[in-house]
């Protein structure tokens, strides 16, 4: 038996955690538990990002998702958490349908994943020879419009995207702003209306 290749070990560890908690999210019926499982699942996905050499994205994953989005979600849970919504049962029949649909989808995706020869793993020696680079700087530069990773690309056809992602970055930023304002407005305005409705009833 050869020695353990640690990245592989961690891959299996993180993937096991993320998959099992994802299944946990699916099967749990208590909304609070679901949220908890989701946190764990997403956190271990960040670990997978690190293992794939995407350290910056992994960090983002933890910060934005685990730190931001989920907090938002948990707020939502708490705001709507009346006793009767904590546990909401799904009819048994739908579980079975969902099971079969899910199984077929999963089968299809697995088939595809296994089907491409280039996606199989590399040789160990080859893998160990690859230097791990930091990606924060290239990503940051990419967002600002400079693709440092493509500077030494000689093949013309592969130079696409040399302009970087500046425009997209801007669009996303504006989009975020709009969304935030919209969300705030939606949540606030309706509540007021609702109160009026209640008042009129009483």
């Amino acid at each position, binding site marked *: *038996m050869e020695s353990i290749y640690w*990245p592989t*070990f961690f*891959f299996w560890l993180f993937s096991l955690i*993320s998959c099992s908690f*994802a*299944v946990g*999210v*699916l099967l749990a019926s208590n909304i609070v538990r*679901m*949220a908890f499982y989701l946190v764990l699942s997403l956190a271990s*996905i960040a670990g*997978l990002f690190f*293992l*794939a050499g*995407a350290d910056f*994205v992994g960090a983002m*994953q933890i910060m*934005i*998702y685990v730190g931001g*989005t989920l907090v*938002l979600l948990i707020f*939502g849970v708490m705001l709507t958490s009346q006793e009767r*919504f904590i546990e*909401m049962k*799904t009819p048994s029949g739908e579980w079975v349908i*969902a099971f079969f*649909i*899910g199984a077929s*989808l*999963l089968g299809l*995706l*697995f088939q*595809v*994943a296994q089907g*491409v020869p280039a*996606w*199989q*793993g*590399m040789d*160990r020696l080859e*893998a160990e020879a*690859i230097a791990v680079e930091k*990606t924060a700087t290239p990503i940051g530069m990419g967002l600002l419009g400079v693709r440092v*990773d*493509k500077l030494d690309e000689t*093949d013309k056809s592969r130079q696409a*995207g040399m302009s970087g992602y500046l425009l997209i970055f801007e669009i*996303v930023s504006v989009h*975020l702003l709009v*969304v*935030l304002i919209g*969300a*705030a407005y*939606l*949540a606030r305005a*309706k*509540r007021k*209306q*609702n109160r009026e409705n209640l008042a009129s009833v009483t």
Partner: protein
Amino acid sequence: MIHLPLAHLLSEPVGVSHYVMVGAVLFTCGVLCMATKRNALGVLMGIELVLNGANLNFIAFGSHVLRNDVNSLGLDGQLMAMFVIVLAAAEAAVLLAIALNFYNNHNSIDVDRADELLG
């Protein structure tokens, strides 16, 4: 003795396909979450899982650690994943707002009650 590939499970590097499979599991869980949860927030969580499954694929396709050839997405994969994360945050905010709104109107977050569009 029967020859077991299992023995090599931990001693060989993983490939893109392994990531894709994990992504597939997350994606499927997410879809099923959306399909089975009656709680609107559960549906939201399902969406998050779906997005993460997709992200995992982006990362895997772009990773030169997993697949060191010119055909990989390279940095583009990571950038895509970034945008997805950011947009997911935005989408979560909007969805939460909608959910709260729905809750206020119907005094419920059961998505099965939202069937006014029934033809």
